[in-house]
């Protein structure tokens, strides 16, 4: 398998085509970030009964360009305590993976340029999904190093929270992605897409749960509301990028929105059949791209909708949701899908497998809950033990009892 572009060896035309595709992907991502920021600001102001940006260009569509130009010309501040090299490196560690991850997303079918047939995706490595996961892991370094190298405590706190959050949710995200990989029996994004037909998406084939987990985990992974406590402006003055200004801040900003677009595109690829859609004989190359972008825009709208609707999570709620709910559930679901596949291959009784799975789920759920209760009791004991030894607290309790 793999891209048919390389089937007849690599010559100059092939290199040029790849360079062209890289350029198109890069420009497309930059433009889509501009559009995404504008789209988000417009939609969220609609949801908040406001008008939103409407000064720069028609409907304010050039607002992001104006903001970016402003950021570009602002002073690039370097804190005195900062670790210079890492401080300069961190924004790129954040932005480059966001670019790179999009490279493996198929945005259309195949096209022919100068006698060469190629996929409409920058690269189709056999380990595409692993590449995606790797890129999202590297992005954590950008956030972590940015906070650490700033030489200031608020960014440090922000980055510690950020890396904890991103690492936690990466586990759940990886497991839900693994479910999609199981369904396609391939790590190549192109194969995952072609294993899904027009309407028979992985979303249905996997029972929906991996998609929901992926959606939540991806929201947390990209630090978007309601999981944006990484850069909670009210609490952390912007989080890990507090000390950044000018073009370096713009890179973080860019990376954040690019990540949003990338995870949405990955969700479309893994669970919604990517560019697949009703076949229309008029302009057959165009329609897959249209389907892909329609699905993508639906996702982006959903992210904005989340932001407008949901209040921010508290840190312990975030960790509880990640470790005690999403990871066990996605682990269970992955095992269920795996066993169903094995059952199909070996012609086992499906109902028996389902029954066994339900029993395992019950046992697992009860065990987990028992463990959580023990942990909660230990925490409570600690808290009440501390209260007993404190004179002030017992005074307060006595007063309360008196009242």
């Amino acid at each position, binding site marked *: 398998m793999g891209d048919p572009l390389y089937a007849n060896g690599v010559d100059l035309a092939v290199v040029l085509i790849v360079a062209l595709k890289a350029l198109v992907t890069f420009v497309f991502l930059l433009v889509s970030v501009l559009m995404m920021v504008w789209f988000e600001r417009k*939609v969220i102001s*609609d*949801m*908040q*009964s*406001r*008008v939103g940006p409407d000064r720069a260009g028609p409907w304010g569509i050039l607002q992001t360009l104006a903001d970016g130009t402003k950021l570009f010309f602002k002073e690039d501040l370097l804190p005195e305590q900062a670790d210079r090299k890492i401080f300069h490196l961190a924004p790129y560690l954040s932005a480059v993976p966001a670019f790179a991850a999009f490279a493996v997303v198929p945005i259309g079918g195949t096209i022919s340029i100068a006698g060469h047939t190629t996929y409409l995706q920058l690269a189709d490595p056999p380990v595409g999904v692993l590449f995606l996961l790797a890129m999202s892991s590297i992005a954590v370094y950008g956030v972590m190093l940015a906070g650490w190298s700033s030489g200031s405590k608020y960014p440090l706190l922000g980055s510690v929270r950020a890396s904890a959050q991103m690492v936690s949710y990466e586990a759940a995200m990886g497991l839900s992605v693994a479910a999609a990989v199981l369904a396609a029996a391939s790590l190549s994004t192109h194969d995952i897409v072609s294993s899904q037909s027009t309407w028979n998406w992985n979303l249905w084939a996997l029972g929906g749960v991996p998609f929901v987990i992926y959606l939540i985990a991806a929201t947390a992974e990209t630090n978007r509301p309601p999981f944006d406590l990484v850069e909670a402006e009210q609490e952390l003055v912007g989080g890990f990028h507090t000390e950044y200004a000018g073009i370096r801040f713009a890179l973080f900003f860019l990376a954040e929105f690019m990540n949003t677009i990338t995870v949405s595109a990955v969700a479309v690829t893994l669970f919604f059949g990517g560019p697949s859609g009703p076949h229309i004989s008029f302009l057959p190359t165009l329609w897959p791209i249209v389907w892909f972008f329609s699905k993508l825009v639906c996702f982006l709208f959903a992210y904005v*909708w989340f932001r*407008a*609707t*949901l209040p921010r999570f508290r840190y312990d709620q975030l960790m509880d949701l990640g470790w005690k709910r999403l990871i066990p559930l996605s682990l269970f679901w992955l095992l269920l899908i795996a066993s169903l596949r094995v059952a199909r291959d070996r012609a086992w009784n499906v109902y028996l497998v389902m029954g066994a799975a339900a029993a395992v789920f019950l046992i697992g759920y009860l065990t987990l809950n028992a463990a959580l209760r023990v942990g909660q009791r230990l925490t409570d004991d600690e808290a009440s033990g501390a209260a007993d030894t404190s004179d002030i607290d017992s005074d307060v309790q006595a007063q309360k009892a008196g009242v």
Partner: protein
Amino acid sequence: MGYLDGFKVTFKQMFGPRVTNRYPDVKRPKPLRFHGRHVLNRYEDGMEKCIGCELCAGVCPARCIYVRGADNPPDAPVSPGERYGFVYEINYLRCIHCDLCVEACPTEAITESKLFEFSFTNRDDAIYTRDELLVDDEGMPRKQPWEDWRPGDEKHTSAWVRATSPSGAASYEGRPAWSGELGFGVRPPEQGQSDFEGAPAEPAAAEIAPPPTRDDKGG
């Protein structure tokens, strides 16, 4: 629906009305007592009302007014009184628009317009001098280059409560009334008190009564 009710609310909002005022294009009518920048008024004959008494400077809590009075030159008097304000400066980086100077002024020389949109870019521009504050021959404030006006904005003037009757007109009923005039000419505040209904109409130039017994120019 439970958890998902919120999504319905935000979605519905998208099709609801907008609460935003489209400010630079559409301006809301300003309140009656809106305090904008000051103007120095003149009488109908072009004489300045300011007599350089420095009461405004004395009462100013922000210390933003600087006045120096001088004797009127006998051959070319500036104000009908003995003295006139030959330096009059207001620093708008300090002014809090409390309107106390307007209340303190015995001759209604200083009043406030409803103009508030200035964006000066240096401190010299922020200090309005007498030439900039004085109304023009039509009795309207002079537009400075850094001020943003729409046509007609200059006709609005800040109303203020006046409980006294400086002109001593007999019809004064002892009731505080709105005095909403701008520009030259003393309009007796008592005017129309008996049929006073709410806010005063915009004073047309013709309505302004001639200055009573004050046309003896200079001292």
